[in-house]
C-alpha cells in the first residue's frame, strides 16, 4: 500500500476551484416531513466552512434536518441550497452527492466485508475516481486510527471501532459537506479526544455539521453552535455565547450544559408568551 498520501492528497481540482456559493448549506423557511408531521418547520440556517455543533432535545428535528441535508429526504417546503444547488424535485443529485459525507444515526454495514473493503465500496459508490481510491481509503483509515484493523471483518469490530469506521466512510470522498449524526456514541474518552482533533482539522476546509447530545463535545471542538427546538433554530452562535448563557445555580453539571438549558428555557418562555 502506498503511504505517500500526504503529498498526493493536498491539492484536488475541486478544492482549489473557486466556489460559486456563499454558504455550503443555506436554508430559508425550510420544512421537512417526518412521517405525517413537519419535524423541521420553518428553519433558517446558513453554514459555511467550519465545525458546527447541532444541539437540541430529543424530537427537536435534528435527525430529520440531517437527513434532508444528506439528500435522504426532500424538503416539503421552503428553500434549501447545498453547495449552491437549489434542492427541488427535478434536480439530479448525482454531482452534489459526490461532495457529501454522511454518517447516519443508525450506521448499517456489511458484516462480512473487511473494514478496508467496506470503505473501498463506499468510495466506489461515492464515485471517487478509481485511481484515487486506494489512497483515499488509506487516508480515511489512518485519520480514524483504523489502519491496523483494515483487514478485520466489520462484524468483529467493537462499538467504538464501528463508529470510527462510520466516520471513515463519511470522509473517504473528501466531502465539502460532512454530516454526522451522533458520531461520538460508543467512543471512549480518549477516542473522543482524537475525534475532536479530527473535527478541528476537517473544519478548516469543510462544512461539518455534527449532531450530538454531548454539549461538551460541541464546546471543545466546534466553531459554532446551532441549537434546535421544535423544528426551528433557537440559537446560533459561538460556543462562548452558549457557555456565557449558563450561570451558576442553573440546571446542569457544567457551564455549557447550563447555557444549553437556559437558552432552551428562554426560547420556550418567549414562545409561550407569544
Amino acid at each position, binding site marked *: 500500500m502506498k503511504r505517500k498520501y500526504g503529498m498526493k492528497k493536498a491539492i484536488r481540482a475541486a478544492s482549489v476551484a473557486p466556489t460559486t456559493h456563499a454558504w455550503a448549506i443555506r436554508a430559508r423557511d425550510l420544512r421537512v416531513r417526518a412521517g405525517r408531521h413537519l419535524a423541521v418547520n420553518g428553519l433558517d440556517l446558513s453554514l459555511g466552512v467550519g465545525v458546527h455543533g447541532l444541539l437540541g432535545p430529543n424530537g427537536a428535528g435534528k435527525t430529520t434536518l440531517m437527513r434532508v441535508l444528506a439528500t*435522504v429526504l426532500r424538503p416539503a417546503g421552503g428553500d434549501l441550497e447545498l453547495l449552491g444547488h437549489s434542492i427541488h424535485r427535478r434536480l439530479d443529485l*448525482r454531482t452534489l452527492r*459526490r461532495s457529501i459525507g*454522511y454518517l447516519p444515526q443508525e450506521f*448499517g454495514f*456489511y458484516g462480512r466485508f473487511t473494514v478496508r*473493503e467496506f470503505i473501498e465500496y463506499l468510495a466506489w*459508490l*461515492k*464515485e471517487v475516481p478509481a485511481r484515487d481510491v486506494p489512497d483515499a481509503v488509506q487516508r480515511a483509515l489512518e485519520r480514524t486510527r483504523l489502519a491496523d484493523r483494515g483487514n478485520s471483518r466489520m462484524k468483529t469490530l467493537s462499538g467504538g471501532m464501528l463508529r470510527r469506521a462510520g466516520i471513515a466512510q463519511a470522509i473517504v470522498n473528501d466531502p465539502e459537506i460532512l454530516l454526522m449524526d451522533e458520531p461520538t456514541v460508543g467512543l471512549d474518552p480518549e477516542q473522543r479526544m482524537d475525534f475532536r482533533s479530527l473535527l478541528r482539522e476537517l473544519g478548516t476546509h469543510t462544512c461539518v455539521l455534527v449532531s450530538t447530545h454531548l454539549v461538551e463535545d460541541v464546546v471543545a471542538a466546534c466553531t459554532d453552535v446551532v441549537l434546535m427546538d421544535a423544528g426551528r433554530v433557537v440559537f446560533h452562535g459561538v460556543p462562548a455565547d452558549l457557555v456565557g448563557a449558563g450561570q451558576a445555580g442553573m440546571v446542569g453539571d457544567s457551564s455549557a450544559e447550563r447555557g444549553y438549558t437556559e437558552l432552551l428555557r428562554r426560547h420556550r418562555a418567549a414562545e409561550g408568551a407569544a
Partner: protein
Amino acid sequence: MTGRILRIEILRSGALSAAAGTALLGATLLYVAVDGWGGRWMLLALWQREFLFILWPMALGVGAWHAGRDRRSRTDELISTTARPRWHRSLPGAAAMALSAAVGYVLMYAAGVAQVAVFASYLPGQSVVIAGVGVLWMVSGAWLGMTVGALVPSRLTPAVTAVVGAAVAIVAITDRGYSHVPKVVHLLTPSPFGFWGDFVTVSGRVSAAHTVWLAGLAVAGLAGFACATRTARLVGLLPAAVAAVAALALLPADRQRLPVPDPEAAALVCSSDAGLQVCVTRVHATALADLREPARQALATLSAKLPRAPTSVRETPASWYDAQPRPQPRDTLLVELELDPWGGAKATPEELRWRLLEGAGTRPCPYIIGKPLAARSHHTARLAAAAWLIGGRPPSGEYGDAALRAWEKLQSLPATEQRDRVTALREAALACDEVNLLDVLVGDSR
C-alpha cells in the same frame, strides 16, 4: 475499480458458498441417479436439466436473499445518499450472483463429466449445448430472484420465491406428459424433455428457442433489479415478452416428443473376428467386448441345432414394443442392450447368452402388448426354446416355472420333433404372426 468491487462482492456476498452448495447438491443428485446417465453424454445433460427443478428455485432464493442485503444490514439509507446510480451499483452484485449460479451448475456438470469422459464412447455436440442452456436457466433464476427480492422486501421473500419457483417447475414437469402439451410449458419447464432412451438428441432449434427465451428472461430479471423506477422496470419486461413470442415461434411445430432420434448415436460399431460379425450402437460401444463371446456362443448353438440359423449379431436401438418391420431379419440376430453406467453391458455373459437365444434368436412381437395371457405364453415359449438350445433349466423369474414345465414337455418329445417344434417357433416369431408360441412349441395339435 469495478473489477475490484466485483471481487469483493464475489468474496463477501455468499456467492462462493452458494456456488459450492449448488455444485455439491447437484453432484449428489446426479450420482444418486448415475444409472440413468453414466457413460452417456446426452443423458448426463438431460438429467442435469431435469434437476433444474431443484437448482433453479435455489438460484431464485439465493438471488432474492442477496437483494435483501441492504435492508438486513440497514445500509439502505447510507447507500441511498451516494452518487452512483442504482443500475450501476447493482451490477457487481448481479454479476456475482450470476457467476455463482453459473459456476455451481458448471461444477455439477464437471462432476458428471469426470465419469462420462472415462466411460462414454460417443460425444454428441448437442449435449454440450443442452448443458449450456442449463447455465442460462441458472443465471436467469438468480436475476429473477433478485428482482423479486427487491420488489418484495420481506424476510420471507427468499423462501417463498424458491418454493413458488419449485412449484412452477414441478407443475410444468408433471404437465409435460406424453401427448400434446401447450408449447408454452416448454418455456416454463427447465427440462421439458423427459427421458426417451439412449438414442435421442434435442435439436439445435429447440435449444436456440430456449436460449432466446432465457436471454429475454434474464434481461427482464436484471432490469427489474437494477432499474430505479417502476416505468423502467415495466420497460424491462418488454425483452422477456418479445423473447417469449420469438421462442414460441422458433420451437418446432411437432412438439409431441421434443427429443428426436439421433442416427449418429444409433450408428453401428462392429467387430468381425474370425468371420463373426457382432455390432453394437455407437453410444453403447463399450458393451461390444462384453457381447462378443456370448454372441459367438449363441450363433454357434443356433447353427448347430437349427437350420438357416443367423450368422451375425446386431444391437438394435428400437424397442421390441415399438412397431417393427415384419418379418424380422433371418440372418441377423437382433438384440437390445442396456449400458452399464460404469462401462460395458449391464448383464452377465450368461444373461446375454440367454437373451440372445430367447425365442430361438428372435425378438418378442408387439402384438402381445395389452394382452396379459398372450404375453405370458409368448414369453414362456421363448424362454423354453432358449432352455432347449442351451440344454439347461431356464433361469428362475417371472416365467421361469412355466418355461421349465414347457421345456420338460418339449424334451419328452422325440428329438426330431423337438427340433421341428423349435424351428417352427423361430419362424412364427420372425414373422410376428399372431399365433400362440406356446402351442407352436409344446401344443398337442400338431
